[in-house]
C-alpha cells in the first residue's frame, strides 16, 4: 500500500507542477505611458462583481446592464463624468435657448444625426426613437423606470431626423433624465411577440455602438469587438471584455496579476491595497448616492415630534462614524450633490451635541422618571428599532455606534436587520421600510442628474396599500416640501429651480426629516496601461466613453 501511495503522490505532484508551470498568469508589466498618442488595437478587460441580467437597459433591474449596454448602444444624449448632459445621437441637447424646449416647456424637439446606420446596415431614423418611447409605455413590457416617459402624450416624426415629444404638462427633468440609454432598433423588434423575452435583449444585435457583442458566456464574461461601421469612427480597442468575478479579493488578485484592467467599485477597505499596487492607479470618484439614517415617521411615532428628530440628529456622532469607517470621505448636509447646480453650500451638518439632544428631549416632554436609562412620556418608552440590509459589516458597525450614542441621551434602541429584498420590499409584501417595521432605516438614496426629488419627499409617495412601492418611506408630509417638489418639476428656469431645491434641502435639514451621513465615494482600480479611464458618478456607468479608451503595451 505505501508503494501505491507513493505513486499517487508522484502523480499528484506532477499534476500540480504542470498546472503551476503552464497555466500561471504572468504579472502584467507595470504599464508606463511612454507615448500619449492613442494606439489602436489590444483588448481591455473590465472586472465587475455584478453580471447583467439582460442587456436591454430599460427592462433590466441592474445598473451594470446600463453600463455594459453603453458598449453596444447609443442614446440621444449621455451624461459625462462631470455630470454634464452631452449629445450623442442628437445633434445638440435641447434647451429653451436653442429652441429644442418650447417656451411653455410642453414640446421638446430632438434633431438627430444624419447618415447613422445600425450594425446591420439599416438606417437609424426618428422612427426608432418613437418606437423606443412606445416600448417604454407598453404595459406588457417590464420597464423598471418610466419617469418622464409617462408625461409624453404624443410623438411626432415630421422627417427622418426630427423627433418632437408633446408633454401633458411641463416636466423640467425630461432632457436631463430621458433617452440617455440606448435607442431600440424598430426594424428588429416591432414584430416581437414578447419584448421581455426577445433574444435581442441578450445580443443587442443589430446595435448602434462602438462595439458589437461577440459572446456572452453566462457567469463568465461578455465580449465585444470593434464595430467597423460605427458612425463615430472606429474605436481604438479591438475587444472589450466585461468579466464577472464574484469575490472582491479575487478581483484584487486579478488586478494585481493583470488578468483584469479595471476593478469596478472596490470596497473602501481594499482601496489602500489597490493604491499600493505598482501597476495600478486608484481612482477615487464622487457618486450621486447618499447614505442616510432615515427617520420613519409612522402616525403614532415619537418621531412625529420635530424636537425628538433634532435630538437624534444631535445625539449621533455622524462625523466620528464617517471618520472611522470611511476615512477620506466627508459628512453630508444636503440631498443634492455638491457637484449639482442645485447644491446648497450654506447648509452645515448637525453638530454632535449630547447635551443639546438631552435638552430637546426634555423640552419635548420625554423624561426618565423611573431611572432605567430610557425616557418615557405618557406611559410610553422612547424605544426605537434600527434596521438595515443584513450582511454589510460597515452598516452593522455603525448601528452599534448609533445604539450607544442614543443610549447616552436616554433613547433605547435595538438593531433588527433584514435581507435586501425584505428591507426594500413593497408595502403589500411587508417590506421593512415601506410598511414601517423600523424607526430608523439605514440605506442609500440615489440622487438624479436632475435635482427633481418629488418621488422621495412629496407626500403623494408615502407607501400604502394603494401605492405599495412609494419611495417616501420616511413618510415626510410637509406642506412646504409638497409645494416645492411639485413646483420644481414644472419650473423651467434653472436658476429658479436651483433656489427651489436649495430650499427643500434647508427644510429637510432644519426639521431633521432624516439624518444625513455621507456621499459615497467609488473606488476604481485601473491598470496604468489603460488610458482615458474616467469613472462616471451617474447611472450612466464607468463604460460611458468606450470610444476614448485605449491601451498601451498589449
Amino acid at each position, binding site marked *: 500500500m505505501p508503494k501505491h501511495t507513493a505513486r499517487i503522490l508522484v502523480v499528484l505532484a506532477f499534476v500540480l507542477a504542470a498546472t503551476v508551470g503552464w*497555466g*500561471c498568469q504572468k504579472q502584467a508589466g507595470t504599464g508606463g505611458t511612454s507615448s500619449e498618442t492613442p494606439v489602436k488595437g489590444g483588448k481591455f478587460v473590465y472586472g465587475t462583481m455584478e453580471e447583467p441580467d439582460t442587456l436591454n437597459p430599460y427592462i433590466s433591474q441592474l445598473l451594470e446592464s446600463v453600463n455594459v449596454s453603453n458598449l453596444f448602444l447609443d442614446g440621444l444624449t449621455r451624461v459625462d463624468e462631470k455630470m454634464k448632459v452631452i449629445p450623442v445621437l442628437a445633434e445638440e441637447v435641447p434647451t429653451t435657448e436653442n429652441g429644442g424646449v418650447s417656451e411653455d416647456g410642453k414640446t421638446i424637439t430632438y434633431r438627430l444625426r444624419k447618415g447613422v446606420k445600425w450594425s446591420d446596415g439599416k438606417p437609424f431614423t426618428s422612427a426608432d426613437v418613437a418606437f423606443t418611447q412606445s416600448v417604454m409605455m407598453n404595459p406588457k413590457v417590464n420597464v423598471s423606470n418610466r419617469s418622464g416617459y409617462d408625461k409624453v402624450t404624443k410623438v411626432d416624426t415630421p422627417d427622418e431626423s426630427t423627433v418632437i415629444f408633446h408633454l401633458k404638462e411641463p416636466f423640467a427633468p425630461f432632457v436631463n433624465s430621458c433617452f440617455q440609454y440606448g435607442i431600440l432598433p424598430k426594424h428588429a423588434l416591432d414584430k416581437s411577440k414578447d419584448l421581455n423575452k426577445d433574444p435581442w435583449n441578450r445580443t443587442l444585435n443589430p446595435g448602434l455602438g462602438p462595439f458589437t457583442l461577440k459572446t456572452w458566456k453566462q*457567469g463568465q464574461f461578455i465580449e465585444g469587438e470593434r464595430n467597423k461601421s460605427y458612425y463615430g469612427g472606429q474605436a481604438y480597442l479591438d475587444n472589450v471584455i466585461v468579466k464577472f468575478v464574484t469575490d472582491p479579493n*479575487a478581483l484584487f488578485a486579478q488586478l494585481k496579476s493583470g*488578468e483584469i484592467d479595471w476593478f469596478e467599485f472596490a470596497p473602501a477597505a481594499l482601496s489602500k491595497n489597490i493604491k499600493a499596487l505598482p501597476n495600478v492607479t486608484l481612482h477615487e470618484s464622487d457618486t450621486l448616492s447618499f447614505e442616510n439614517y432615515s427617520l420613519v415617521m409612522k402616525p403614532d411615532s415619537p418621531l412625529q415630534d420635530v424636537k425628538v428628530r433634532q435630538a437624534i440628529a444631535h445625539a449621533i456622532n455622524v462625523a466620528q462614524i464617517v471618520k472611522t469607517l470611511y476615512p477620506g470621505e466627508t459628512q453630508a448636509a444636503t440631498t443634492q450633490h455638491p457637484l449639482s447646480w442645485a447644491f446648497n453650500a450654506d447648509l452645515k451638518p448637525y453638530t454632535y451635541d449630547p447635551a443639546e439632544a438631552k435638552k430637546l428631549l426634555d423640552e419635548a416632554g420625554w423624561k426618565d422618571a423611573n431611572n432605567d436609562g430610557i425616557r418615557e412620556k405618557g406611559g410610553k418608552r422612547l424605544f426605537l428599532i434600527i434596521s438595515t440590509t443584513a450582511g454589510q459589516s460597515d452598516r452593522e458597525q455603525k448601528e452599534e455606534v448609533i445604539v450607544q450614542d442614543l443610549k447616552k441621551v436616554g433613547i433605547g434602541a435595538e438593531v433588527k436587520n433584514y435581507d435586501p429584498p425584505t428591507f426594500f*420590499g413593497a408595502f403589500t409584501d411587508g417590506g421593512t421600510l415601506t410598511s414601517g417595521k423600523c424607526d430608523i432605516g439605514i440605506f442609500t438614496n440615489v440622487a438624479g442628474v436632475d435635482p427633481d426629488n418629488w*418621488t422621495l419627499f412629496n407626500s403623494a409617495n408615502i407607501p400604502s396599500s394603494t401605492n405599495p412601492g412609494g419611495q417616501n418611506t420616511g413618510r415626510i408630509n410637509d406642506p412646504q416640501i409638497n409645494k416645492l417638489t411639485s413646483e420644481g418639476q414644472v419650473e423651467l428656469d434653472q436658476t429658479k429651480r436651483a433656489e427651489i431645491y436649495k430650499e427643500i434641502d434647508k427644510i429637510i435639514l432644519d426639521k431633521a426629516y432624516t439624518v444625513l451621513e455621507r456621499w459615497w465615494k467609488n473606488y476604481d482600480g485601473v491598470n496604468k496601461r489603460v488610458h482615458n479611464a474616467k469613472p462616471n458618478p451617474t447611472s450612466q456607468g464607468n463604460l460611458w466613453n468606450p470610444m476614448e479608451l485605449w491601451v498601451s503595451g498589449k
Partner: protein
Amino acid sequence: MTRYLTRRLLQSVPLVAIISVLSFALIAKSPGGLVAAYTHGRRLTAAQLAAIERNLGIDKPWYVQYWRWLGRAVRGDFGYSFTSNEPVTKVILERIPATLELIVAAVVVAALVALPLGVIAAQRKRGIFDTTVTVGSFVGYSMPVFVVGYVLMFVFSIKFIDWFGMGLPSGGQASVGTDPGFFDYLSHLALPAATLAIAMAAGWSRFVRSSVLEQMRADFVRTARAKGLSERAVMVRHVLRTSLIPVVTEMAIEIPLLFGGTIVTEKVWSWPGIGQLMIKSLEKRDLPVAQGLLVLIATLVILGNLTADVCYAMLDPRIRYD
C-alpha cells in the same frame, strides 16, 4: 431488484412533489415579495407595479401560481426567469457542466487523498502518521470553506505573484479573450477543486480509517491471515473490499448534496456553476429559477440515496433486495 427499484422510484414522486410545494410557498411568500427589485429606488406608480406583477404571473395567490407551475413542469416547461427572461431549463442546463467539472475534480482528488491516508492511518494506529492525519483532518474538516478558499487565494494567487512573479488564477473557469487550452482549464480548476476537496478528504479519511480498523478486527480477516495469505492480499482482498461499503454510501449520499453545497466555493472562486445561480436567484427572488434548482437538487439527493442502497447490494453479499 427491478421491483425494488420501481417501488423506490415511485415512492420518490410524492416526495419530490411535497418538496416542490414547500419550496414554492417559501419563496413566493418570502417577506419583501417578488417585486422587491422593482420597488427600491424606482419611480413606478402602483398601476405600473401591478402590470409587472400581472406580466410575471404573480398577481394570483401562491397556490394558484403553484398549480400553474406544476401543470407546466410535468410537461417539462419550468417557465422563464424573472430577471434574465430566459427559459429556466436553459439557464440551469448552462450551469451544470461547470459544477459537474468542479465536483468530479474535487471528489477524485478527495478520494485519492482520503483512501490512502485513511488506510495507512488505520494500519499504523496511534503512530506519528496516524496522529498527524487525525489532527490535519480535524483542522481541514472544521475550517469553514470560505476560510480555506481565502487562505489558498492569498497564498497561491496573491503572494505567489510577489514571490515568483506569477500565481494561480483566482477565479473563473478559464482565461477570457483567448482560446483557453487544456492547461488553462486545469490551472483555473486547481484552487477551487482543492477548496472543495479539503473538507471532503478530511471527513472521508476519518471514515476510511474507522471502517478499516473495524474490519481488521473481524473474524474473517483473522481466518484469512490464518490461511497464510500475505498481509497485502488480506488488506486488498478482504479488509478493503468490505470496509469500502460504508465509505461508498457516504460518498453516494454526499455527491448530490454537493450540487447545493458548492455555493460558497463557487462564490469565492467566481465559478460559473449551479451554486452561483442558486444564490443569485434567491437574492433576486427569481422564483422560477430558484424553484427549478430546488426541485433539481431534491431529485438528485433522492436519486443519490437510491444509488447508495443499490451500491450496498452490489458490494455486500449479505444484502439483497427482492
